[in-house]
Structure formats: structure tokens, C-alpha cells
């Protein structure tokens, strides 16, 4: 008998994430650090392994180097398998018609032979820019029970935000009768999470047809799903009621980080029943010095804190020197905040140096927006970075930006 997998997951990780500005200058969005020790892609990958899905294709295109290195052989997620496991799929040269991935559907279409190697009955499509814990096996069970051709995971969103999403209009049994991509006047508040399960044969058929259609923009939401619906395929919504956050913008990334804080956090990454796996930093325990203060914060290994940290999330190996104060901020690994500097309502990328007595951002209640400092930036001594500024180059001592 041919070896096969019941379900193969395909994770779309090629997005540029242009709304994260300086944070995605050199890395793909799924590789953006989150929650002190994770990267965004840890969530879908951990969901896969926790749901019993051990074959995952990760489709990369934009700035894949760090993402490739991070995924490696998949061992941190237990996805190093003799048959299956995690595989990074970049666009490749073909005998005729070599091309970049032109849309989400095209990216999957170009890797259809990867999926067919495992001869699956179902294909799970995921995107690499959401923070959530979801048991895909329950959704797969619902898909099988409904004898569906396509099941779309959906979540209730506030009415005023509904026009940002693909909205599903459903019958009482959960079957979808209408699919609206970013409607101006949404009829319902059930939004697609960008998580789809297809019965494999149906998906192959529609992807092949779509590839022949010169008018198509080769996108699941815009092309494949409407075509399937129009053809009368069995399409169902699978309602998910847990925490789900699209971290595609600076403010949503900041909010999702803050959701981890507090005694009973909005989103709990420490749940032993649903472990979030990640590539762990090689660092000793964090040290909190005499005279330091750390309140309502999350701190990763290897940090050295001598100053004040409040309502913040600090990734590994961050140094907060004496007299420095960090508030309402997200600081990624390897960054140093020097003595006397103040960081307020900011997201600071990896390996940044905030110089002595520098001021970054303004108090959250008064700030125009979140201040962002990009990777490897150095802020000079006494320099000032105003609230809402996005900085991806060095700021000289005393300068204002």
C-alpha cells in the first residue's frame, strides 16, 4: 500500500507584511518576533503538530533567509520526520513558465506535486500572520462529517471592522451561500480567518482551472472560493471562538503582545495542554539587579535588567541599564537600552541600541502613535525619537527624529 497522509498543511509565508514597515525590511512577516520568545510562525506550526498534522509545506518568497534558518529541519516543532515533516517551498525554475508566486492560489498550484507526494485526502491552507491556538483536527472532523468540499474557519468580528475581512454569509446548518471579500456593507460579522480545508481532489481541480483563467488574480479569497461557490460545491463555515489576532499592522502587533500580560491574560502562551513550540534562545536565566523594577511584564531568558520595566514584553538578551525606563513597549532580542534612556509606547526590533538619556516615543495616553525602531538601528546619546515615528536608520547623538 502506498504511504499517505490524511491531511497535509500548506502555510502561506511569502507575504511582505508592508504594513509592519521597518519590522519587515529584511525578514518575512511570519518571522517577526512575538511574545518575548516566539516568532509569528510558531503559532501555526505548533497548532499543526498539536492537531496531529505532521506534514507542512511552508511557502516562502519575500526575504526568506531568516525564516528558512529559523524553520531549519523543523526539530523544535517535532516536525523532523522520515515521512512528512516541515518543508520550505520557494518558487523554483521549471521547464517552461518559471514564475514567482503570483497569488495565494498560484503559490499552492506551483507546489501541487509536493502535496501529491503525500497523496492526502484533505489539504489545510494556513497563513503565517495570525496569532491563535486552534485545534485543526476538530475542524477537519467537521469537514468530514459535513461531507464538505471546502470548510472555511470563521470568527465573529465587530461590525465596524467587518469590512476589512472576507465575510461569510451562512445558512443555519453552517453552509455558505455567499462570500464577500471586504464588503462595504457587510451582511454578517462572520469573518474568514484565512484557514481553509479542502478535499484534495476538488482543490486540484479548481486550482488547475484557475491557472488557465487569464483574468484571475490567482487568489483563494478573490477567485477560488467564489468559483467553487458559484459551481454549487459544498462549502461550510467552521466557527472558531477562541483568541485570534491578525498581527499585520504595528498596532495589532503591539496589542497582541500586550494581550499576553496580566494575571489572567487575554491570550495565554503558557498553557501546558497546548504548548507553543519555538526555537529556543541559548541564554542563561534573566537577571534582575538591585534597584531594578519589573512590573506587569513578560521577560525572556538572557535579559539583564537594572532599570525600570513596566507593562512591556522583552525578548531574550535585552539589556535595560540603570536609570533607563521602559513602559508599554515591545523590545526584541539583543537590544540594549542604555542608562537614563526612556522608551515609551514603542516596538523596538532586534539588536537596537538606544543611547544614554535618549527619549523614544511618548506616554501612551498622549502619543500620536506607536514608535518603531528597525533592526540594528543605533539611537545616539540624548537623541529624541518622536511618538509615532518609524525609524530604520541611525539617529545621531542629540538629533531629533
Amino acid at each position, binding site marked *: 500500500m502506498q504511504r499517505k497522509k490524511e491531511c497535509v498543511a500548506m502555510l502561506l509565508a511569502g507575504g511582505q507584511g508592508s504594513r509592519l514597515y521597518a519590522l519587515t525590511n529584511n525578514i518575512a512577516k511570519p518571522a517577526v518576533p512575538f511574545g518575548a*520568545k516566539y516568532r509569528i510562525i510558531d503559532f501555526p506550526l505548533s497548532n499543526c503538530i498539536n492537531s496531529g498534522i505532521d506534514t507542512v509545506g511552508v511557502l516562502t518568497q519575500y526575504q526568506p533567509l531568516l525564516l528558512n534558518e529559523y524553520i531549519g529541519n523543523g526539530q523544535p516543532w517535532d516536525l523532523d520526520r522520515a515521512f512528512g515533516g516541515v518543508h520550505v517551498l520557494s518558487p523554483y525554475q521549471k521547464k517552461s513558465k518559471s514564475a514567482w508566486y503570483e497569488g495565494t492560489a498560484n503559490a499552492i498550484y506551483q507546489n501541487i506535486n509536493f502535496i501529491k507526494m503525500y497523496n492526502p485526502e484533505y489539504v489545510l491552507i494556513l497563513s503565517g500572520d495570525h496569532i491563535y491556538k486552534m485545534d485543526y483536527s476538530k475542524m477537519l472532523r467537521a469537514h468530514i462529517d459535513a461531507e464538505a468540499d471546502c470548510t472555511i474557519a470563521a470568527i465573529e468580528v465587530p461590525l465596524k471592522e467587518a469590512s476589512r475581512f472576507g465575510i461569510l454569509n451562512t445558512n443555519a446548518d453552517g453552509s455558505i451561500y455567499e462570500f464577500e471579500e471586504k464588503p462595504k456593507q457587510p451582511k454578517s460579522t462572520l469573518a474568514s480567518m484565512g484557514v481553509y480545508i479542502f478535499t484534495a481532489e476538488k482543490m486540484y481541480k479548481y486550482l488547475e482551472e484557475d491557472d488557465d483563467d487569464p483574468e484571475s488574480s490567482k487568489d483563494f479569497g478573490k477567485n477560488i472560493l467564489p468559483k467553487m461557490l458559484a459551481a454549487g460545491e459544498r462549502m461550510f463555515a467552521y466557527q472558531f471562538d477562541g483568541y485570534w489576532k491578525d498581527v499585520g499592522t504595528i498596532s495589532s502587533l503591539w496589542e497582541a503582545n500586550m494581550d499576553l500580560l496580566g494575571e489572567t491574560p487575554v491570550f495565554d502562551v503558557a498553557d501546558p495542554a497546548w504548548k507553543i513550540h519555538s526555537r529556543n534562545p*541559548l541564554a542563561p*536565566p534573566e537577571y*534582575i539587579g538591585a534597584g531594578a523594577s519589573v512590573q506587569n511584564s*513578560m521577560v*525572556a531568558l538572557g535579559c539583564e535588567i537594572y532599570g525600570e520595566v513596566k507593562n512591556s514584553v522583552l525578548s531574550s538578551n535585552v539589556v535595560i541599564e540603570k536609570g533607563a525606563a521602559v513602559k508599554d513597549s515591545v523590545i526584541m532580542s539583543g537590544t540594549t537600552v542604555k542608562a537614563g534612556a526612556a522608551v515609551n509606547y514603542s516596538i523596538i526590533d532586534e539588536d537596537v541600541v538606544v543611547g544614554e538619556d535618549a527619549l523614544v516615543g511618548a506616554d501612551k495616553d498622549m502619543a500620536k502613535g506607536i514608535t518603531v525602531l528597525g533592526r540594528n538601528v543605533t539611537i545616539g546619546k540624548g537623541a529624541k525619537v518622536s511618538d509615532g515615528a518609524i525609524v530604520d536608520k541611525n539617529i545621531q547623538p542629540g538629533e531629533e527624529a
Partner: protein
Amino acid sequence: MSAVGVVFSNIHDENVPELSRQRTMGSLPYGGRYRLIDFALSNLVNSGVTTVGIITKNNYQSLMDHLGSGKDWDLARKTGGLVLLPPFGNENGGLYKNRLEALKGITGFLSRRNEDYVILCDCDGVYRMDFTDIIDYHEGKQADITIVCHTEDIANSDFYTIVDTDEANRVTGLKINERVVGRSHYYSNIMVIGRSFLLNIINDAIARGYNSFREDVIMKNLKSLKVYAYDFNGYYATIDSFGSYYKHNMELLDKSVRDELFGARDIYTKVRDSAPSKYGDGAVLNNALVSDGCIVEGTVENSILFRGVKVGKGSVIKNSIIMQDTVIGENVSLNCVVTDKNVVIRDRRNLSGCEVQPYFLPKGSMV
């Protein structure tokens, strides 16, 4: 040069009976997220050694659980890698009784290797050392055996081997089982020796019915063997008692010690995938080392928290070492306490030891 590592995981189990009753010296928790064997293993790996044999004797479940396939030390290899060497039972039904018998039990492993040297180390030391320096020294001296020595103040112990040398650093005398107090030049249980030479002397020693590697093989042959001392001047902590275990752990609160041991960020340990630690609104920390997965709501001063420790509101933890997954309730007061893994301390308890004799709570106890 090429070398194979051999780590004795059990040899010093009697040093810290409180903690090694149910585990090997190698799996003694240390420094918030490590086990003692991590230091020996990481130093070997960082010195380019890719094959390490681990000699075990008793109670090595926790050690095997910790080491797994060796992947966390990059020692899950097709060729070599981590090799567990459990003891052979002998005809009398016993396990090996001394280092020489333990070495006799691994001659098969050693003879199948093709490295030039063997680095032998125990699990009673916390240090960061480049073993290639010692092998260079060994070759430079054309030594038969090089033993790593360290000079330190010793507080009344008979666990040490005191080393006398001539001006060329050749070992002229060893003193064992002597109660020593004060500054001493001692053997730190790390040795470099040629692999085939080691195999020869093991076979020879067994044939002559010797019992002790140190006494019968080395001490009695200092004239014929070229035994040299390599003086290590970096940070070296020997765990020879519960008191020194406590004292050396606390030294990690000193930045210079941390920088020397961990500065290069290359001491490996088992990965547990804990969430980052969280600090509540009422958290007060002062000179504390905190590992991942902790939730701190109270006050922690001059203390070390291992992975997954919870400190409830209003509790004050001072001068203490709190091991993995210990849960401390609310309004608890601890001073100079060492808790082993999975201890539960209920609300409003007040426990105190003193710095020379910390109060110890065994694994899984509930107070």
C-alpha cells in the same frame, strides 16, 4: 588533534547527598536552568568534541531524561555523538566499584574510536574551559597524562586530591583523603590522556589486580609516567557539599561570574519550551536570577528561581534557591531555603535556614 570525551556522571554522588539521593551528580539542577553535566558537555562540544561517552552507574533515569538523544548539545550524530555507557554487571552481581572498573567497562567503546586523545571529566565542576588548550599543552609537554588543576580556598573537606608539582609543572606528588583547609592546589577531575595509552594502562592495571586509577596507576608511577598539571585560572566551582552547592549557585548573582560562564551564550541544556517568565503588578525583584516559565507576583531577593516556579502575592523569598516547578503560595516568607523540584509551600508559611546550612525541602514535598 582529535579527542573523545568521557564523562563520569556518578562518581561524586556522595558529595551532595541531599540532592543526589534520587539522581546522578550529573543531573543535579544548577543555575536556574542547567544540570551539572551541561557544563562538562558544553565545554566538550565547544572544544570541537563530537563523541562523548557518558558513564553511568545508579539512578540515571533523570540523567537519561535530561540528555535524550543529545540533540540539545548537537550530539545527536550519525557518527559518534552522545553514547550512554551503562555499567556491566560482573559475575558477582555487582556494578563497578571504582573508576578503574568503570573504565574497564568501556574499553570496548574506547577501542572502537579512532581519536588520538580522551578527555575524562566528572560532573562536580562548574566552569567554562577550552579543552583544546589543554591538549596543546599536553602535546607541548609530551606528557603521558595531563591533569587540570585549580587553586582555591577549600573549606574543610577530604574530597580533594592535592597536587604537588616541580617548576616545569610536572606532578611530583598527590595527596588524597587528606582533610584540607585553606588555599590548595588541587586536581579538578579533568584529565587528558592518549587513547591507546589509556587502553594499555587499563588492561595492565586490571591484570595486576589494581583497584584505584588515581592511587595505583597514577600516584605510584609518578616517576615513570610523565604526568603534568595544567593550571586553570578561570572561574571554577567545585560542588563538594550542600554548602558549596548553595554558595556557588549564589555566585551566579555576580555579573562577572555570569559573564565568564555564560557570556558567549554557549552553555547548552535540555530545551523545555516553557513560556517566558511573567512578572505581576506587585512583583519586586532585587538581585535575582529567574529562569523561563516562572510567574512572580511577590518579592524575590538574592535568589535563584528555576524553570516554572510560581511565587504568590505578598510572599517574600530571600537568599533562596527554588527549583523547577516549585509553587509558593501567598504571604509566604522564605530565607536561605533550597527547595528541590515540585515542592509546594502553602500560604503564610515561614521557613528559614542560615547561609552555612540552608533549609532543604526534598523533591515533591509539601509544606
